[in-house]
């Protein structure tokens, strides 16, 4: 009997075996270890952690290995694992002003209290393939590792003294914070939920949207107030002890983007902020996120909503690459029932048109005689 798209158990089993063999590649080439990926593909690991919403470099490296380097697939693996984890506690907000900074720059001021630190960046490298890396074994050593004080004021806060920038005051300690991993996205979405959505959002998508705001799709005049990367402490409150306990450090990249605001009838012109935060060294992501965050504040700031990046429903509903990848790729599942239904309809409609044409031609022929 003919069986359409019916492979069943055997076909799936074979596919999984082929996948495993292909993933390993040529067995004459040594296998990658998870530790090698974690140490030497760390930016890839950082992205998987950020969009996978789990800070665990080992798990992210494992996911990348299993996914053969496919970032979105690795992010999906990490997310699906995350779902099964119990929630043990909620941390206190991290204090990025107390960061142990490895990199800190601002484009607004030539110098600033605490100083700037270029840190490990691709920025001023000439993008020439380094064929020396083809040889293995060399261990580069950096001299002149700079360091800054581990308690640096946020550059944007320096503008506070003159009231030149909007103040962002923390919510009350017990104010509710949305969590998209437990509640569906609903509108209007608060900034807490928007930022969570953007932090989990696909980097390429944010990059394109952020870019569009610089090209006139939203009136954006951004300046990098500050970008800083480094280690911050994570603390949890232990009610029984009555104080917070440091449970370890994580590395994050934070971007505060400054945007001009023309002011309104009630408010004087000032600067406003867009905010970006990502795990690890993920500067492109944090910058793009801060541009989109600012664009999404259009309604709150009384600006006209004219551009895609300002449209919260559009931006937030399509930001998640696990959702997007799944739905785009589901098109390869069998759809022959729907297609058959369409086929039947189109045939019926074509037949009716053909009949109608034949009738009208016959009428014309009759009339001509």
């Amino acid at each position, binding site marked *: 009997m003919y069986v359409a798209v019916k492979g069943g158990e055997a076909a799936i089993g074979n596919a999984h075996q082929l996948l495993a063999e292909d993933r390993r590649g040529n067995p004459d080439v040594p296998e990658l270890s998870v530790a090698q990926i974690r140490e030497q593909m760390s930016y890839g690991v950082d992205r998987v952690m950020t969009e996978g919403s789990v800070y665990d470099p080992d798990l992210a490296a494992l996911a990348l290995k299993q996914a053969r380097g496919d970032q979105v697939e690795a992010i999906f693996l990490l997310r*699906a694992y995350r779902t099964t984890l119990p929630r043990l506690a909620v941390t206190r907000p991290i204090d990025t002003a107390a960061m142990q900074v490895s990199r800190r720059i601002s484009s607004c001021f030539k110098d600033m209290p605490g100083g700037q630190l270029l840190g490990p960046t691709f920025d001023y490298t000439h993008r020439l393939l380094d064929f020396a890396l083809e040889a293995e074994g060399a261990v580069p050593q950096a001299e002149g590792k700079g360091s800054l004080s581990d308690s640096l004021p946020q550059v944007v806060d320096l503008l506070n003294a003159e009231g030149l920038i909007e103040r962002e005051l923390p919510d009350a300690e017990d104010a509710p914070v949305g969590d998209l991993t437990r509640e569906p996205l609903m509108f209007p979405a608060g900034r807490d939920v928007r930022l969570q959505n953007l932090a989990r959002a696909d980097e390429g998508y944010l990059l394109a949207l952020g870019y569009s705001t610089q090209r006139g799709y939203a009136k954006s005049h951004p300046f990098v107030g500050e970008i800083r990367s480094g280690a911050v402490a994570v603390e949890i409150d232990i009610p029984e002890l009555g104080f917070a306990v440091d449970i370890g450090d994580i590395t994050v990249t934070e971007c505060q983007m400054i945007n001009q605001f023309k002011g309104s009838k009630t408010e004087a012109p000032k600067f406003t902020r867009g905010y970006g935060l990502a795990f690890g060294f993920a500067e492109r992501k944090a910058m793009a996120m801060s541009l989109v965050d600012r664009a999404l504040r259009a309604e709150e700031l009384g600006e006209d909503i004219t551009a895609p990046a300002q449209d919260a429903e559009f931006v937030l509903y399509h930001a998640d690459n696990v959702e997007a990848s799944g739905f785009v790729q589901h098109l390869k599942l069998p759809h022959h*029932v*729907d297609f058959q239904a369409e*086929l039947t309809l189109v045939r019926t409609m074509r037949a009716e048109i053909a009949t109608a044409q034949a009738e009208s031609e016959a009428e014309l022929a009759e009339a001509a005689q």
Partner: protein
Amino acid sequence: MSVQQNYRTGATLAGYNFAFLDEQTKRMLRRAILKAVAIPGYQVPFGSREMPLPYGWGTGGMQVTAAVIGSKDVLKVIDQGADDTTNAVSIRRFFVRMTNVATTEKTRAATLIQTRHRVPEIPLSEGQILVYQVPIPEPLRWLEPRETETRKMHALSEYGVMHVKLYEDIAQHGHISTAYDYPVVVNGRYLMRCSPIPKFDTPKLNMNPALQLFGAGREKRIYAVPPYTEVKPLDFEDHPFEVERWPESCALCGAGDSFLDEVILDDKGSRMFVCSDTDYCGERREAGHTGRMSAPYKAEAAE
């Protein structure tokens, strides 16, 4: 034996809870399902979780099934009407690994059926639950992409745009050009999308004795049609709702009343039509029914 019992009783995949989801997630889903049943056709938002299968591949249906399923259930999973399509196999395997429930390909033997794109041909009975995998739950989505707007339209029962759309179809094509995912009104109140089942299956939702649950994982909505509930396709007096028909009958079992898949046999346009519902087709062939291409089976069955 139509029901496959899995003998590793009690043992599900190490490290995972029964039916994969943690209990708090199940409670959240169960509350949403009960509200969905209480408000037929209304889409209840829920905190959809990432499942180990991709969004768009049945995660909503799987979450509903995971919230409902118990060790006494007998599970059937179909995709395009068939139990042995790859995604149906994959989802069934997932639930066997995670719950060890018995599975079946027999519609009549199942207590719980998860489906994509079809309603079984064999009528369902009281006590059965049919779980639909839904890609886009919002019936107005192609007409109004904004959730904030469609939510208002449902609140106000403002479904004029859908009537206009169908009317424009008729004006342009002489037909309502919706072949699947045909819009229906549930219990005279909510406009609902029946997931992309063919129009052929739409009437089966009406006054069905079984409970019908719909899960959209990526879109984070659950909705329901309780048993014996009116489900009415939108239509016009002069253009009443009609289902598609085939000039042919099933080449294997001869059925003239089932949804047929078209199978292309060669590059000269030869084709055959076979039942999309493999259980229905098999049951008919077992009972001795034959079609024009069921030669070997026919010979046996006829004598």
